[in-house]
């Protein structure tokens, strides 16, 4: 069980400079969706981008989080979506 804000901090710490939004989708503290915007995603495919986020999460991903729906965007892609 984990707070969305804690998960957000873990991702922000693991990917310095990233913009991160995390939402607890069920209120149960183990299903989340996250938007991560980082220039580290430039030139990377989706698999590599998600791996960057999973690496940032480390043990939290293996233990506390049952499900995480991920959206990974570069700053330019994020601009275009607004």
């Amino acid at each position, binding site marked *: 069980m984990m707070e969305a804000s804690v998960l957000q901090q873990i991702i922000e710490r693991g990917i310095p400079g990233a913009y991160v939004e995390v939402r607890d989708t069920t209120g149960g503290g183990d299903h989340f969706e996250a938007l991560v915007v980082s220039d580290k995603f430039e030139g990377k495919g*989706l*698999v590599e981008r998600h791996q960057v986020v*999973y690496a940032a999460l480390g043990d939290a991903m293996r233990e506390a989080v049952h*499900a995480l*729906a991920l*959206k990974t965007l570069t700053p330019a892609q994020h601009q275009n979506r607004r």
Partner: protein
Amino acid sequence: MSEALERIQSAISGNRICIFMKGNRNFPQCGFSAATIQIFEEIGTPYGTVDVLSDPEVRDQIKAYSNWPTIPQVYIDGKFIGGCDIIRELHETGELETIVKSSSAQPAAR
């Protein structure tokens, strides 16, 4: 090589589209696995599945094998394509269908 690793590799090489999932195509045991199967059904392409719930060693090892912490996992032509989110995203943009069709149009290069 461990037997579980052999089972993983033979599933990937034996199925052009190989989905490691919880449950099977008729009875998926997880919403993310079900959503992934649904997309390949919509595209209407043949695919193979491996039920990780019935093979705990494969369930454990596929995560390290793909460097990916969650199930489902989709391989096409031996290449790791992604989990449920990525499959959804590729399906929305039409890229998934392109990948599926291009690889079916030519024999997989190995």
